[in-house]
């Protein structure tokens, strides 16, 4: 049986990138150290900050909320009901239970109640990919609620795998503008609040393990709208590299932050955005509504479109295997 590198007790997890195994106590300690290092290296949070954690019911956001509360931060949760059929029902129930069990404050926003559409409908009506419509809506609502409720910082559960996959995609396309914007902290300014990603030094596997060790119930099944997306393919590719050379994924992303970001920061600054004439949020031009308001305009009030109807053939097959062939709404 594997032994913990720190104490010699039976291990609960092997971490090839650290070339070591850890017992539950020392694994938790390692995760806390990585979280604290990210927070301090990138000046993410001050002890007195009011933090709003974007929670989805998945492992990363619930682990992040748990970790920040354990570290003594004043952290409340924000859950957005996206209207993705049974998946949203389950993730909402799990998030509510997590908050209630720990007596934490949870703010809930139902996107259909507040904005008159849901994600499958937005994707179906506009022709945007579901993940794009979802990301756009979440970013807008996160900003809006953090501002309205007076939070200092919005924290999201993006982990090292998420960031490495985004970096991989941006690099494959040599998208310099996106590469320049890819940072673990986005400072407040130009109408945006401060946003931080405290899990950037921790992998997806470590976050799943954190939840199991800490007894956190989370949504294990994949979002039906994300099945087969490009982001997952990038993660598979990076994991294949890591299997032959452990630590490749971490050094790809952390090396980017350490050595490439300073170079990109020296290049031309992004123009300050204008304000959306409809909602006041940052927009590309002053004479046109922001992307979210344009999405609301197209999708709001439209007859709801079932999840299954907006999936491609491959994703629909995976959806049927997971959720049955009913429409899921």
């Amino acid at each position, binding site marked *: 049986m594997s032994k913990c590198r720190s104490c010699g007790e039976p291990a609960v997890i*092997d971490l090839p990138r650290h070339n070591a195994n850890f017992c539950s106590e020392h694994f938790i300690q390692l995760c806390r150290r990585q979280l604290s290092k990210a927070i301090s290296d990138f000046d993410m949070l001050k002890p007195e900050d009011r933090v709003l954690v974007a929670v989805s019911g998945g492992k990363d956001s619930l682990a992040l909320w748990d970790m920040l509360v354990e570290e003594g931060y004043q952290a409340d949760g924000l859950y957005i009901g996206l209207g993705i059929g049974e998946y949203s029902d389950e993730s909402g129930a799990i998030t509510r239970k997590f908050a209630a069990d720990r007596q934490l404050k949870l703010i809930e926003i139902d996107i259909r109640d507040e904005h008159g559409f849901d994600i499958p409908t937005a994707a179906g009506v506009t022709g945007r990919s579901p993940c794009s419509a979802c990301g756009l809506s979440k970013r807008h609502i996160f900003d809006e609620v953090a501002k309205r409720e007076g939070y200092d910082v919005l924290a999201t559960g993006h982990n090292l795998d998420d960031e490495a996959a985004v970096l991989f995609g941006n690099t494959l396309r040599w998208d310099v503008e996106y590469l320049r914007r890819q940072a673990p902290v986005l400072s407040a300014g130009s109408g945006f609040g401060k946003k931080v990603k405290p899990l950037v030094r921790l992998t997806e596997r470590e*976050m*799943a*393990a954190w939840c199991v060790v800490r007894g956190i119930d989370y949504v294990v*099944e*994949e*979002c039906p709208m994300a099945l087969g997306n490009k982001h997952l393919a990038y993660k598979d590719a990076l994991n294949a590299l890591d299997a032959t050379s452990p630590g490749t994924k971490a050094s790809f992303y952390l090396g980017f932050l350490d050595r490439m970001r300073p170079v990109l920061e020296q290049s031309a600054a992004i123009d300050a955005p204008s304000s959306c004439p409809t909602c006041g949020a940052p927009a590309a031009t002053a004479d046109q509504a922001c992307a979210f308001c344009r999405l609301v305009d197209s999708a709001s009030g439209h007859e709801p479109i079932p999840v299954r109807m907006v999936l491609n053939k491959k994703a629909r097959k995976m959806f049927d295997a997971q959720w049955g062939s009913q429409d899921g709404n």
Partner: protein
Amino acid sequence: MIVRLRQPSREVEVRGDRPARAILLELGFAPEAYIVICNGTLVPSDTILREPDSVELRPVISGG
């Protein structure tokens, strides 16, 4: 032995008395993308799994 899988949730029968890592590879799963839960406890992937262990091989990758 019966092993629980996810995405989608299902059960498969595999040969036991082997490390979890060998079972993951046989099923075509990347060990870096899974955690192993044996009898309700997290275990390293070199743990030998055998009857009557209750085993879940849980994927950790999400696409959001």
